[in-house]
């Protein structure tokens, strides 16, 4: 990948003939805060309403359709204690089209215009669109309740991370939506243009002058802001927080949150990544093999580790009658990791598999870009070969070492029925 430092942003270009497309992504980064998350989310849904040249979603989409379905989407999310707005765009490379469209330049200009020349800024902006965007956002937040797997995971973060960035929902808060005015949205947009830390990634088959094209067509004010994304979640309670909620569900959803101290900067991070992998990261993991395959207690069970906030999560969907048994088995697997109580072949198996999974990511523009973004945000320049060789060097003792840093903080269980059973 080639890296460039342009006045308003950092640009990473992955020049490859592998894909039939050009993928260009702009990430706008600011600190994750309860005060701004809602307005940023609402604004992101209004940015897709177009530019002064294509006023309104309908016009914008028409323009994109003419360009063989040039795809633009805007989403929000978080990494550690940073919030980001992501403008993601895919265009078919001119070589595959019946007519020459100079599509890559149009793609870059469009991303520029969505911010710098946003339709929202014009006096002619249809204010009705703000009302619709508000209703849609309220619905989106409400409907998070309906996906019980996601809901129970979010609740676990909310209880575990009270008064820390971990509790903040990147989708925003219903109670903050109504009072947002058009002026608030415009102020937020100005702040984003001036102050957000910006990353641009491009992946496709480009000519040599691609840097100049970006320099000319995608322009932001000079800005050297950096918002550190990594923070270790610090536990505040001595006893495990055990929360149970009752709803009409056929299957109980069990979520466990653990704190650790091994961040992306920690030299033990490679051990931690492999620890999570062996514990619950794939089909041969201890959790999958013991809880699902051996005891037939569930269909899904797994774990994930976030190296930006140092939180390990374990999740499973189990029958109400088997909750205790599932919990015990989960704790048993963590103990096994601490004591090295599993065959050595498990480690080789996991290493081999992890390496292969990692390399597969190089065949997908989206995973290539996400990986690069996370590293750029953490300000890490990681050599792929070196990274993989460190993963492959992890020993059983290293795994036990990081397993011991893991501490259960919160358990959130969504159950059917009511408190009386």
């Amino acid at each position, binding site marked *: 990948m080639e890296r460039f430092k342009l006045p308003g942003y950092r640009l990473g270009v992955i020049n490859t003939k592998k894909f039939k497309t050009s993928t260009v992504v702009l990430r706008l980064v600011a600190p994750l805060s309860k005060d701004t998350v809602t307005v940023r989310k609402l604004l992101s849904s209004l940015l897709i309403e177009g530019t002064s040249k294509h006023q309104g979603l309908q016009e914008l989409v028409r323009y994109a359709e003419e360009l*063989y*379905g040039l795809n633009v989407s805007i989403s929000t999310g978080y990494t550690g204690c940073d919030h980001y707005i992501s403008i993601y765009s895919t265009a078919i490379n001119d070589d595959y089209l019946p007519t020459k469209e100079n599509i890559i330049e149009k793609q870059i200009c469009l991303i520029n215009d969505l911010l710098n020349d946003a339709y929202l800024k014009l006096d002619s902006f249809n204010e009705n669109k703000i009302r619709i965007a508000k209703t849609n956002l309220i619905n989106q937040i409400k409907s998070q309740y309906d996906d019980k797997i996601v809901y129970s995971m979010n609740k676990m973060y909310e209880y575990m991370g009270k008064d820390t960035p971990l509790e903040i929902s990147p989708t925003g808060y219903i109670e903050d939506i109504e009072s947002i005015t058009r002026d608030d949205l415009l102020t937020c947009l100005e702040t984003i243009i001036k102050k957000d830390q910006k990353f641009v990634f491009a992946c496709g088959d480009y000519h040599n002058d691609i840097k100049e094209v970006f320099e000319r067509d995608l322009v932001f004010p000079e800005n050297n802001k950096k918002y550190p994304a990594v923070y270790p979640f610090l536990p505040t309670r001595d006893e495990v927080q055990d929360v149970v909620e009752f709803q009409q569900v*056929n299957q109980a959803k069990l979520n466990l949150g653990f704190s650790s101290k091994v961040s992306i900067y920690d030299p033990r991070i490679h051990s931690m990544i492999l620890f999570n992998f062996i514990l619950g990261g794939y089909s041969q993991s201890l959790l999958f093999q013991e809880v699902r395959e051996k005891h037939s207690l569930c269909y899904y069970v797994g774990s994930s580790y976030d190296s930006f906030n140092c939180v390990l999560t374990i999740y499973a969907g189990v029958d109400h009658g088997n909750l205790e048994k599932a919990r015990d088995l989960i704790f048993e697997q963590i103990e096994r990791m601490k004591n090295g109580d599993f065959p050595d072949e498990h480690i080789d198996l996991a290493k*081999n*598999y992890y390496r292969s999974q990692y390399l*597969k990511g190089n065949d997908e523009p989206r995973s290539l870009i996400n990986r690069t973004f996370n590293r750029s945000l953490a300000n890490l320049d990681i050599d792929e070969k070196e990274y993989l060789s460190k993963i492959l060097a992890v020993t059983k003792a290293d795994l036990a070492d990081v397993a011991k840093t893991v501490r259960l903080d919160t358990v959130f269980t969504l159950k059917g029925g009511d408190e009386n059973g």
Partner: protein
Amino acid sequence: MDKKYYHTLKETLFHEQLDNGLNVYLLKKEGFIKTYGIFTANFGSNDNEFIPRGQKDFIKVNDGIAHFLEHKMFYTKDGVDANELYAKLGASSNAYTTNNQTSYLFSTTQKENECIELLLDFVQALDLTEESVEKEKGIIEQEIKMYDDDPSWRLYFGSIAALYVNHPNNTDIAGTVESVNRITKAELDLCYETFYHPDNMMLFIVGNIDIEDTMALIRANQNQKQFAPRQEIVRKKVDEPDHIAVKYQEIKMDVNVEKLFLSIKVNDVPSDPIESLRRDIAFNLFFDCVFAKSSDLYNSWLEKGLINSSFETNFTQSRDTAFIQMGGDCEDRKTFEKTLIEFVANIDRVTIDEATFLRLKKRDIGNFILAFNSIEPIASNFSRYYYEGVNAFEVVDVMQEITLDEVLAVRKYFNEKLMAITIIKK
């Protein structure tokens, strides 16, 4: 081995049918690290009444058996899990069952030959014990219950089930907890012997491969195995009346946002694969022209607050069924329901101008090319179209030929008498 170059996609596809009947397709992707293999049996949840291989009479098997068999295929002799063998090769493996087919797949960045052989070997041998069959029931029961808690899933499949009186489309692919519990080892063996014969299967390998070597490897693997003589599988034709099963149904769930789908049964299903593909493309283009984010109607419904971004429209067509679905989350259920019903009632007034048609056609062509960007969509598209009698590499050229008249002609299938409403209610 025959080969064909597809100009629009700039891809060359190789094919050979082996002596045992197996159809093999190979595609080399320059510059890719990954290789992906998919092995598909023409056997899905809808195949529940058939004459077993070597027998004379029809039998009816328990619902969910194709999916159950998919779970059990991974247990190879010696009790080793095929997933584990793949993991040892540094590869990942998976499988899925649809109404009409079961697919097994792997993806890898190394040891491609071993992965291909393993795919052929584990799917071409079944080693069940009564005990292992019983054990799987608990896992599948949890899978069914997980989906039972998912309102989008219940709405989607509920709205299809409402349309069918006898056709197995009215039953979940995984079956029910009760039907799964009735499944026996003998029943699984019978299905396996009938449907997992090479002449009822297709293998597609795409990625970082050498074409000649890979084909030679597959040929050698197949030549050393014995299979029953080739024989056509007789499936019982479903006696499905034209009318629908349920006109209106409410499913009560613990949700914040209610959901509604309108579904319509289409009884006229073309038997010619290309005609069927043209219908499919025409339907999708119709919905795109009428309900794309660039359309007037979509935007007016959005402005009135009738719909939000969850709104979707689908046309689904397979061997012997076809149906339409429209709907999504609803704030004001009554008005939403009325609007959808009126849309169907006044379908003849829906028009599409030439400019809109051409623009959306361009977009759909672009999206199809996009799907050929990465390995998985190529393989899954190929497998999906294959048993419909269509070569996925030709779809984009058929898309170019579709006319506005063909698109407008699909309006006649919006038949009010064959329409069902399904609601996920608080």
